[in-house]
């Protein structure tokens, strides 16, 4: 089953993987991390990538970030072949990796210290314009009172909010999220879905979210891609058309549950395939 949403066809894609494949090692000992995969993400789209663990989701993310070069095929981001130097990307992982010696405000400001064109203005603006920008962002996620706190003074959920702010502060055109809410408890996670949704609705970055939480994918994404087990490839691609803003209550409604179940079956099939191959 393959449903491609309309938007991907018209506008030039923000991200395009064309027949991109990744393998490690040489000849006999080659490990294929990703089979030839094609994926187009339109500008402003929110794509979730789900699949069994070890299927190459993170490989796709590292390809898109320019941290990894494809062995075959091409990866085009913002109209250019990727290399980490030229991009303006925001990234957030499951581990918030805040620097313990900086306040939350300074942590969130870190990309401005590194990314062009902000880095040349960092000294002049770090106590003015940049601080206001960081404060506004922190206010959006409800952390404005914690700007001058150190990371260890915050809870896991708060750190993850700060992590999202750090990924967005330099106004990236592409946001890459690798299971950012994976380590949080159920309620904090649902709370952060709401935060993420409102951040996205306000700023409309292109997002590629990697997750193994199907409910999370359905709540946040405008499109869900399902990957097969290793070596991965995309086996299903479908639009999610629930109205926004979505609420946690909606995740208990019939359509949402039906979507969840369909995705679940796809992944279970993908898993059992490898189980047979492995046997």
């Amino acid at each position, binding site marked *: 089953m393959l449903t491609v949403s309309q938007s991907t066809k018209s506008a030039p894609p923000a991200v395009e993987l064309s027949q991109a494949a990744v393998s490690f090692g040489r000849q006999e000992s080659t490990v294929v991390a990703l089979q030839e995969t094609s994926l187009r993400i339109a500008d402003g789209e929110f794509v979730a990538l789900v699949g069994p663990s070890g299927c190459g989701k993170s490989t796709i993310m*590292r390809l898109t*970030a*320019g*941290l990894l070069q494809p062995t075959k095929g091409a990866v085009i981001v913002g109209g250019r072949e990727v290399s*980490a*130097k*030229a*991009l303006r*990307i925001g*990234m*957030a*992982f499951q*581990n918030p*990796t805040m*620097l*313990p*010696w900086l306040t939350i405000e300074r942590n969130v400001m*870190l*990309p401005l*210290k*590194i*990314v*062009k064109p902000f880095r040349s203005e960092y000294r002049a603006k770090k106590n003015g314009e940049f601080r206001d920008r960081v404060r506004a962002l922190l206010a959006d996620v409800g952390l404005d009172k914690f700007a001058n*706190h*150190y990371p*260890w*003074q915050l809870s896991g959920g708060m750190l993850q909010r700060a992590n999202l702010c*750090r*990924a967005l502060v*330099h106004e990236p055109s592409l946001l*890459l999220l690798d299971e950012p809410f994976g380590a949080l408890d159920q309620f904090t996670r649902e709370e952060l879905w709401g935060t993420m949704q409102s951040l996205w609705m306000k700023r409309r970055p292109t997002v590629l979210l990697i997750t193994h939480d199907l409910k999370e994918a359905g709540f946040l994404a405008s499109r869900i891609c399902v990957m097969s087990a290793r070596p991965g490839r995309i086996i299903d691609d479908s639009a999610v058309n629930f109205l926004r803003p979505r609420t946690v209550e909606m995740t208990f409604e019939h359509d949402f549950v039906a979507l969840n179940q369909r995705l679940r079956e796809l992944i279970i099939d993908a898993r059992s395939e490898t189980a047979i191959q492995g046997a």
Partner: protein
Amino acid sequence: MSYEMRRRFWATALIVAFFGLWEILCLALQVSDLVLPRPSQVFATLVDRFPVLVPHIIQTLWTTMVGFVLGVVVGVVIGAAIGVSRTAYDTAYPLLIGFSSIPKVAVVPIFVLWFGSGSVPAILTALAMCFFPIVVNIATGLATTEPELEDVLKSLGASKLDILWNVGLPRTMPFFFASLKIAVTFAFVGSVLSETVASNRGIGNVMMSASSNFDVPLVFAGLFILALLGVALYVAFSLIETRVTGWATRRQDFTAA
């Protein structure tokens, strides 16, 4: 009484008890001051001879500090060089461990052979004693940077230098200061060691000549001075450490600052 007050009280009490017991045992067992002088005798000697001892104290302190500063420079450079690259780390480690396992007493005669007796061998021995813990700590601090954080920074277009400056070096600071406290006491051991072997100045030399004159209280006075200087330097670096790397120990007063 607060925890801090109690801690100080008991630390002081332990020191007083130590010297008290020493004094009492010497008196009770009638130990000759040629074997083990009483603390009161040592303090009397210390006060009595202090003007004569001052130039020696300055000499020891001077050679220690010069050796220590050079050791820090050498240690940081080598540590940073082998910490940023896995290959350099694996390549250089066996040689460094081999070097650090050599008893430094054994190299003093070589330094004397090359540079004559005096300040230079003392400085070099201090350097040789103190740079290794710094190398290890800097290298470890740099080598243990979280890979996710490096990915985040690389995807922002950060250069190796950016990552080193913004992440590598700051996160190495607690390791660095921990090593400084050890290194400064090692530097002390080095310079005194060299003075006892080949020098006509410094506390090490005073102790050597005093023991050959059977002036045992003066030998112990030398030991007391060394202990005091060692504690003073350790405290100085601890103070700098808490100011610079309070974040690592999650100090509330660091946050307020």
